[in-house]
């Protein structure tokens, strides 16, 4: 860990003065500290290279991993509110990497902003000095790349363009839907990961199942159903000519990887390819 921080610092000092320096609050979430370390590590390394400083929220708690849709669920939303409030205290945008965490934080934030029932009750529970009312802006790492850093800047920073690699973007459901709240991209015809793939020099492969659900949430409960979904998605990507499929979600990663009945395509986190393209992967 010490070494890692040093590397980050090194990159920041190296880049200071060259790149517009940006600071964000960063929420990794539990899986990124365990099974999805590479999603996290490569994400941080790349961000540092791109001049974005990700300050991890102190003492963060698990977001709950699933957004409680029931209107009367308050307690299950509180840990997300604490995270959102922590970012508000620092007056920073909150960057997430895991699609599931992003989904939970973004939707709870929307509740705190627009749902008076949830807002009042959550604040009553939390007893913050100043009530939290949805002030924090929650953005996914990909949105940070697109809207804050810019894909053009990213493209310019690429040292190992992944030329000729045909990559299928797997969006899944959590980043896109419901679009009214997530406001991430066109929920039916998204382009952000394809644009990302182009920026790192690879070739995006469009396929029809990229925004269909892999069944990750029921993988434990009903492996068979999840397998069915995974096979449909992977074969769709494979038939479209992809060499590789990328995702931003540890749940999708696990599901696409572990529940495919036959191994047709390798699955990677987008941050791994990003780190590769930026030339920061080998340094770790």
């Amino acid at each position, binding site marked *: 860990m010490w070494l890692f921080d040093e590397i980050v610092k090194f990159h920041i000092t190296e880049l200071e003065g060259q790149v517009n320096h940006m600071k964000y609050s960063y929420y990794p979430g*539990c899986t990124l500290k365990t099974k999805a370390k590479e999603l996290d590590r490569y994400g941080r390394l790349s961000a540092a290279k791109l001049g974005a400083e990700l300050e991890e929220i102190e003492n963060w708690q698990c977001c709950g991993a699933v957004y409680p849709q029931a209107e009367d669920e308050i307690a*299950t939303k509180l840990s997300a509110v604490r995270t959102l409030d922590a970012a508000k205290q620092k007056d920073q945008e909150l960057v997430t990497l*895991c699609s599931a965490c992003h989904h939970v934080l973004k939707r709870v934030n929307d509740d705190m902003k627009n749902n008076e029932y949830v807002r009042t009750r959550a604040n009553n529970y939390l007893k913050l000095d100043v009530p939290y009312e949805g002030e924090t802006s929650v953005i996914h790492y990909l949105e940070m790349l697109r809207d804050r850093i810019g894909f053009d800047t990213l493209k310019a920073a690429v040292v190992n363009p992944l030329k000729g690699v045909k990559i299928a973007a797997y969006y899944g459901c959590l980043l896109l839907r419901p679009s009214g709240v997530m406001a991430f991209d066109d929920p039916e015809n998204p382009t952000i990961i394809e644009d990302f793939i182009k920026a790192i020099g690879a070739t995006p492969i469009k396929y029809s199942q990229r925004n269909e659900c892999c069944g990750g949430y029921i993988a434990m409960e009903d492996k068979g159903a999840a397998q069915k979904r995974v096979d449909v998605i992977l074969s769709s990507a494979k038939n479209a000519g992809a060499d590789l499929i990328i995702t931003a979600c540890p749940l999708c990663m696990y599901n696409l990887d572990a529940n495919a009945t036959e191994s047709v395509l390798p699955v990677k986190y987008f941050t791994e390819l990003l780190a590769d393209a930026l030339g920061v992967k080998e340094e770790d």
Partner: protein
Amino acid sequence: MSLTNTVTAEDLIRISGVDPSKCMQCGKCSGACPSYDEMEYHPHQFVAMVRKGQIEKLMASDAIYQCLSCFACLERCPRNVEPAKLIEAVRVAVIRQQGMNHMTANDIPEKLDEKLPQQAIVSAMRKYSK
């Protein structure tokens, strides 16, 4: 195990925040549903059956555990009915009852594999137990 408390359509409407009367029964939700073939009742039927007060059938059905929470129905609904919320409300109404947890901590070990991410466990516990 059996349901101890009666759940009414009004309860489900309150829990979900869904107004089933907005539905025009176009079936787009069920046309979009990736779990359609796994489910005994389909998203549009959840809406119709809540409207008609046929709650017990829904609560007894395995369909409530087959929903992937992928929000395709909710996203594509032309009338913003949000069937996914209604399905979750039925599931919540079931697991909130005594002894009705669909999954308990004891069920976990046998389902674990080395790659399984935490969030799969956390989310499953959140979804299937109280």
